[in-house]
Structures are given as structure tokens and as C-alpha cells.
């Protein structure tokens, strides 16, 4: 009898432990791992706020930490205004800027998506609120600044549970359990993750700054996951517009500044997502497919200011004679790579992409249902279509020439120093305002003598008469 009772007690105890274990397991799973689908009905919203899988690792930051970071560490931002000071395109009434996503994996996590680098803002004057052009180049956004803000904050001893929870407390009551999870798991883990990412990106610290509107697009891929030893190349290049991909795909044009890909658009989209720190195992293929079809027909925004139609039609002829062969649909060289000897622009971006990188990327995803085969090494730069060129300033692949008017001048007459990233539009010169007190306050100083910033080359049109140049610029507004 007694033995029997003792056995039963053991069983009961075991059962209780088991039940507690299951409850605890469920709790941890639901608060740390349980994934809630994030779905946006509209294609545009999906592009702006939809997930491409970056919340799973790398740059992920739990929402509540992300929310209070600029309030705890404002000194690591370029100026007042919280995240806005980095040039995020942020729609009124939205909890997050365009290009950041909020996906629940146990907790709401903030990730990035394509729109971060592919959304432009334009203002008519310094007091106006920005017009937002989704799929335009984020000429105003400081990607490296965002990374460095996250890294500097995570490196700061004040990035600890006491400070962060104290900053969250007046804003949101997350409850005891989540508070404990933040204290003992999420805050330390976020710090660790950011510091690891910082380590992986440390190569960028001893080369020239990217600056607003530019990134080094392929060195992160090379050094972080393609297994290329860190070299000393500089890949700094403008964010590109990604609208209107249809004609580029249909005509078999090259993609990227140096044309390092051609063929299926999927290779561009998937490799870009990987570049944004998504791992091959967690690529959300369906949603990336959705984004890809959205980009095929994403509209080119018309020039929003006045156009002198008469002057523009005179310019159309100048364009046809001087530019169309490389830059218009049907041009014999449009979408092809123009040899560096001919175009003569800064060669750093081109040199940053190497044969070894090509080999590595083309075999990178061999075990997956998708893979890469079109990466290539070119010795020149891609002659891109000029759709929406008014919104793609500063010009040349490294954004070293502030306006279209300047681009039609020979290099020695182009500005040697200017400030880029200020989003007030220059309707005279066609580009953004790059000089003056406000441009200096909000913009990033580009000096063409810094490696990677040369404004040389692309001499086409520099020999036109002033009248021809004026009419050509007028016509370019209409593209």
C-alpha cells in the first residue's frame, strides 16, 4: 500500500514537472519564436512595409528597443529629429518609416526591406513636407549612418536592460513576463547581434564614407557571405531607381551600375535580399516574387514642376543625336556595358566587383530551388535607361555630379565639393539643392578628390552650345 502511494506521488510530481515544462515551453515559444504572418493586401504597401525576411537575424531590432533608441542615444544620430535625421522617408501617421518592417516573431521585430534604399523624397522648399516617391533612389537616406547608429548604441554601456526598460516604461506596459524576456534575453541578444553585425561590417570603417544616398552594394556580400577575403576596394555608389523594370527585362538590359547581372530579374531581387542580410534558408520567395512583379510595372513619376514644352521639343532632337543610342529604348548600346576607357568615370565601383566574386555568387545557391548563374565581371559601366532621370540626381554611378546642368559641363567645371542628401529640389539645374546653409546642414559633403568620388568622364554633351544644353535639360525633365 505504502509503496504504491509512494509511486503515485512520484508520478504526480513528474506529471506536474512535465506540465510546468510544457507551459513554460509554450510561453517561451509564443513570446520568442511564434511567427505571425505579415500581409499587405496592396502591392504598394507590401513594397513599403512588407517583410523580405530580415527580421529573423542580422539587423533585427525588437520594436520597443528600436522605438526608444533614438531617445536614449540621440548623440549618435546626425542631428535632431530622431530617425528622420537619417533621411528616412516617413509617411505621416505611420508608426514606422518606409523601408522598415514590423513583423512578430514572438515579439514585434523591426527589419528592413527594399524600400529603404529605393524610396526618394522631394521638397519644394525647406518648410514643406516631403513628397514621397516609392521605387525612386533614396538619395536622402544615410544607410551607413543607420548602421552606425545601431552599432554605436549597442556598443554604448548604457545599452542595458535598466536603461532600455526605463525608457520603454512610460510609453508601453509590456507586462511582467515580457519585461523579464527583454531583460534577460532580448536586450542582451539584440546587443550581441548588432555587435556581431558591426564586426562583420568593420571593413567599411577604413574606407571613405558612403554618404547620404549611397551604399557600397557588393562588398557586404563579398565579405559577409561569399567568402571573399577582405580587400581594399571601394564600391560606393548611388542607390538606384527600381521603377519600370518591364522594359529592362524585356530588352535584356544589364542591371546594376556595372551591369554585373543580366537575364532574369529574380536574380537581382534575390541577391538584393541576401545583401540586406536575409539568409538563403529564410528567403520569403513568394513575397519576393510579389515585389518583383510590382517592380515590373512600377510607374515612373512625371516631373512635378513646370516644363517649357517648346524648349523640350527642341531638346528632343539634341537627345536623339547625342544620347539616344545609349540611353533610349531601341538605342544600340542601351543597357549594355560601355568600356571604362570610353566612359571614363570613376573606376572604383567597377573594380570592387571581382572574378572571384562572380564565381562565388554563381555557385552560392546551388543547393536551393533557386540559384544564380548570370553574375559576370565587366570592365565598364552600364548605359542605363533615363526614365525619371529628374529624380535620380546626383548623377553618375557615384553621385559625383549634382545636377544635369553640371553633367553637361566638362569635369573641371563640375562642382568639386557639394552637399548631397538635402531633398529640396533645384528646378533650375535639375537635381537637388547642393549648396548653401541648409544643404550643408542637412546634406553630406561630397569631395570629388576622395577615392571613389571622382566626377570625371561621361563627356557626352559637354561640347554642345549653351542653347542646346538648355533645351536638352528641358527635354530630360520629360523622361
Amino acid at each position, binding site marked *: 500500500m505504502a509503496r504504491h502511494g509512494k509511486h503515485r506521488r512520484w508520478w504526480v510530481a513528474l506529471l506536474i514537472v512535465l506540465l510546468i515544462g510544457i507551459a513554460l515551453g509554450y510561453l517561451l515559444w509564443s513570446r520568442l519564436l511564434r511567427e505571425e504572418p505579415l500581409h499587405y493586401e496592396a502591392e504598394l504597401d507590401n513594397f513599403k512595409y512588407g517583410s523580405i525576411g530580415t527580421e529573423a537575424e542580422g539587423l533585427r531590432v525588437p520594436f520597443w528597443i528600436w522605438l526608444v533608441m533614438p531617445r536614449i542615444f540621440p548623440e549618435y544620430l546626425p542631428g*535632431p529629429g530622431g530617425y*528622420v535625421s537619417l533621411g528616412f522617408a516617413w509617411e*505621416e501617421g505611420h508608426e514606422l518609416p518606409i523601408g522598415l518592417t514590423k513583423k512578430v516573431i514572438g515579439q514585434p521585430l523591426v527589419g528592413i526591406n527594399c524600400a529603404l534604399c529605393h524610396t526618394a523624397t522631394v521638397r519644394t522648399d525647406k518648410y514643406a*513636407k516631403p513628397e514621397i516617391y516609392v521605387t525612386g533612389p533614396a538619395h536622402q537616406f544615410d544607410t551607413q549612418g543607420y548602421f552606425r547608429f545601431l552599432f554605436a548604441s549597442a556598443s554604448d554601456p548604457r545599452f542595458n536592460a535598466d536603461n532600455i526598460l526605463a525608457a520603454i516604461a512610460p*510609453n508601453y*506596459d509590456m507586462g511582467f513576463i515580457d519585461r523579464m524576456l527583454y531583460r534577460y534575453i532580448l536586450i542582451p541578444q539584440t546587443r550581441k547581434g548588432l555587435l556581431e553585425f558591426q564586426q562583420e561590417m568593420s571593413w567599411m570603417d577604413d574606407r571613405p564614407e558612403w554618404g547620404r544616398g549611397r551604399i557600397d552594394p557588393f562588398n557586404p556580400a563579398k565579405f559577409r557571405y561569399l567568402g571573399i577575403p577582405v580587400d581594399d576596394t571601394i564600391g560606393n555608389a548611388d542607390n538606384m531607381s527600381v521603377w519600370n523594370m518591364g522594359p529592362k527585362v524585356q530588352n535584356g538590359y544589364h542591371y546594376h551600375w556595372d551591369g554585373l547581372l543580366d537575364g532574369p530579374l529574380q536574380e537581382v531581387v534575390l541577391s538584393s535580399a541576401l545583401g540586406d542580410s536575409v539568409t538563403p534558408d529564410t528567403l520569403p520567395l513568394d513575397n519576393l516574387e510579389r515585389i518583383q512583379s510590382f517592380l515590373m510595372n512600377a510607374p515612373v513619376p512625371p516631373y512635378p514642376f513646370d516644363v517649357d514644352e517648346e524648349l523640350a521639343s527642341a531638346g528632343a532632337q539634341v537627345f536623339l543625336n547625342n544620347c539616344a543610342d545609349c540611353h533610349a529604348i531601341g538605342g544600340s548600346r542601351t543597357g549594355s556595358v560601355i568600356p571604362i576607357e570610353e566612359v571614363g568615370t570613376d573606376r572604383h565601383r567597377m573594380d570592387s566587383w571581382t572574378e572571384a566574386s562572380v564565381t562565388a555568387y554563381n555557385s552560392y545557391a546551388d543547393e536551393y530551388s533557386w540559384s544564380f548563374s548570370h553574375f559576370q565581371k565587366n570592365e565598364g559601366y552600364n548605359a542605363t535607361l533615363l526614365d525619371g532621370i529628374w529624380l535620380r540626381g546626383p548623377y553618375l554611378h557615384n553621385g559625383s555630379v549634382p545636377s544635369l546642368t553640371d553633367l553637361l559641363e566638362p569635369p573641371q567645371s563640375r562642382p568639386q565639393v557639394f552637399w548631397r542628401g538635402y531633398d529640396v529640389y533645384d528646378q533650375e539645374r535639375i537635381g537637388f539643392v547642393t549648396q548653401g546653409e541648409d544643404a550643408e*546642414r542637412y546634406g553630406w559633403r561630397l569631395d570629388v578628390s576622395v577615392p571613389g568620388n571622382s566626377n570625371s568622364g561621361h563627356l557626352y554633351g559637354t561640347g554642345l552650345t549653351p542653347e542646346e544644353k538648355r533645351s536638352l535639360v528641358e527635354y530630360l525633365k520629360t523622361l
Partner: protein
Amino acid sequence: MNDATVRGTRSDRPRHGRRRWVLIAVAVVLVLFGAYLARRFTRDSPVVYDNIVEHYKYGSLGSEAFSPPYWVWKALPVMFPEYLPGEGYQSLGFVYEEGKDLPIGFSRRRLNGLDGLGLNCAFCHTGTVRDTPESAPRIYVGMPAHQFDIQGYFKFLFDAALDQRFTPDQMIPVMESLGADFDPIDRAFYRYVVINQVRLGLLQARDRLSAIIVNDEVPPWGLGRVDTFNPYKALQLNYPMHEVPVDELIGPADYPQIWNQAPREGLYLHWDGNNNSVDERNLGAALGTGATPTSLDYASLDRIDTWLREFPPPEYPYDIDRSLAAEGEPIYQTLCADCHDFDGSRIGTTIPLDTIGTDPYRLHNYTYDLTVNQATLYAGMPWRFTHWRKSDGYACQALDGIWARAPYLHNGSVPTLRDLLEPPENRPAVFYRGYDLYDRENVGFVSDVPEANGREFFRMERTVPGNDNGGHLYGTDLSPEKKAALIEYMKTL
């Protein structure tokens, strides 16, 4: 314990038994004391007012953590009278009612183990009107606090916090002499925690606000005005304010009235029309009192919100020439109603700055970056802000109770309605604001008296940035007779 008992010999037992009982008794006392302390320090009980007007005047919004607690607040003017413009808090334009301990706009709430003191809506939205220089002021709730010096209040608190005498040793005796009946726990709490924490909190607030409030490059707000939105940048969002361009730190605006909210739903509110939701406007203003999304007493705010929706504007308290007013009505209908009547086509919309031509600073200091940052306030709650917008001008306001809303224009740069109907060059270049003596002739407050009843008023100069009295030229070319009729009619609104 068990082991000891088992191992003990028979003769040891009674002694051990006694010890056990003593230990149990000690444990029970400790547990009870712990429970008492827990109760004492976690109790959250506001002073509640059943009467809604009393609630508006003295009820708690949950903003207590931001203000010095009751006894500290009481001790400050006794310890630091030199930092006030005159005698007591009254000298800042606080409105005291007969027989009341606190001025209107202050609430009490037992919180975190002490008597907390908070601010509420009435703090900035209660005005006074005096019929003659000698008469006592009449109190109008919901009216702009045109007589109130909020900047002076903050400066007073900050100056006190900077003073070396702000210490437990010096303050506790003052609090007790004023009637604080502290028990030993209170005394220890104030001595070792509260007073130092309050001082630290004030110094931190000063640090964040100093670029706006204690900055020689930023003109003073003066009586009845506040820089509404820069404090959000400093306090809620912790912008590095010393990096904000000086122009953006300027933008004083008059307090608005807050009666009659129901017909305002959906209209663009605030001077620059930056939000068209009455609820969000209220939630935003509640943060301005020092409440936070987690401390705000939503039920309390809701009571005020419901009441204000129907609370009528006060009637003009003096004689109106009814026949003259009747002549003025068609002039108003033709000239003003389209923008200023609840039925007007442009009511609650913004008129672009180039068109309206009034002072630009207030418009520009509500910046786009603030707009989108505000969308992160109340995150995680169903009422997270979604309606803030950056506008390009100033909003057309309804003119209910306009007689009580002087001085006029958003920056209070024009003392009376009569002056407002003059072209800018004829409007007073310099006047004094903050005196509550009513000017029945010109409709507004008497504005040519630099001081009265021991109070100095604010010298308002139009050449100072933020004080420009230009723009809003509507009606300036009417004949003197028509102007008189229009003004008479406006008394009836």
C-alpha cells in the same frame, strides 16, 4: 529548525518551542509590515470630484510624476521667493478660488507612497476677467489662460532646483512648518529619496528644455503664450535641442479656448491645423501636462472630453447694442463666415502662409520630423497617433466666445478686435498683455498698462521674432461705422 527540534532532548523542548513562537511572530510582523509598505507605496488614488467642473479644475490626469510632489511644491515659494516675480504663485497668474488650497489646474493624487501633485487641462485653459481695476477677477473655465506665465513657472522650478538650498535638511522643516504631518516613514522617504529625486528630475527637465526656456537667443513667451510643440521634441523625444536651429526654437502661441468641442470634430485643430481628431488633440495635450501613455488616467481624460464637447462658450458679460450688432451680422456673414463659421466652407481648413500672411514662426516650428515622430506616441495602443500632419498655413478657427480669446491672431500680437480690423501698420507696435481688465470699447483686454495690482505685464513688441502682427487683412478696409457694427456683432458669438 525541524532538525534542531528532532535532535533536541526532551528537556530542551520548551525553550526551543518558545523560540519557534518568537520566530513565527517576528515573521508574521515582517510579512504584515511588508504588506503595509507594499500597499503604502503602490496605492494609486486620485482625489476624485463628482462634479465635472470641479474635476476639470482639480481632477487628476495621472501627470503627477512630472511635477514636484505636493509638499515640495508648497515649500518652494517659501524657500525661494526671490525666483518668483512677486508674492507667491499668484504672481505667475495662477488662479486661486476662494477657500481653495491649490490653484486651478492642479490635482492631487496619492501615488508611489507620497502626495503627488499634477497638472491638468485647466492649468492652461482657465482665464480671468476683471470689470474694473478694483474689482475681483471673474474666473472662466475653458478660457485661454491669457494672464498665466508658464515660462515663469518653469524658470522658477528650475532656479529652485539649481539652488544649493534644495536639500532635505533645509526643505523638510519648511514642509513641516507648513503643516506636513510626516510619520517616520515619510520623513525617511523624503529625506533619502524624494527630495533628491525631485531635484534631479527638475534638473534633467531643465537640461532638456533649456534651449527653449532659458536661452537668450529665444525671445520670451510672455504671459498667456507657450511654445506648444518644442517641448514634445525635448521631453517626449529627447531631441538634442541645442542642435536645433534657433529659428525653430521660436514660435510662441496663445493658449486656445477649449469649450464647445463637439462641432470641432473633423476640423483641423491647433493654430496650424496639424490634427483633425479631437481625441488625438486631447491625448497630445495630456502628454503636455506631464502624463505619459502609461501614466495617463484615461477615464479621467474621457470625463473631461465628454464634458468639453458640449460645454458652451461664455456669454459676453457686458451690454451689447443689439441694433448695432444686427447691422454687423450681414457684414460678418459676407466677410468672415466662410472661414470662421461652423457652417463656413473653409472652417477648419488651413489658409496657406503666403495668403494669410501672419507670423511664420509657429507654423515652421511644428516640423515634419516632429509630425512623424508623434506617430510613435501611444505605440502599442489602439489610439496610437495617426492624424498629425504638417500643414502649410494657419487654420480657420470658429469664433465662439471670441470676446474672451484676446489678444488676437495665433501669436496674440494684436490686443483687441478693433485693432485687428486695422491694417498692420496701425496695429499697436508695442503693448502689454496679461492684464485681465476688460476693454469693452475695443473688445479685448486693456493693453496699455505696464503693471497693476503688483503684477508686471508682458511687453509685447512686434519687431521681436515670433511676434509679428502682420497678415489677416480681412475687414481692414471697412468703414469705421461698419467696423463698429461688426465688432458689436462679434460680442454675440
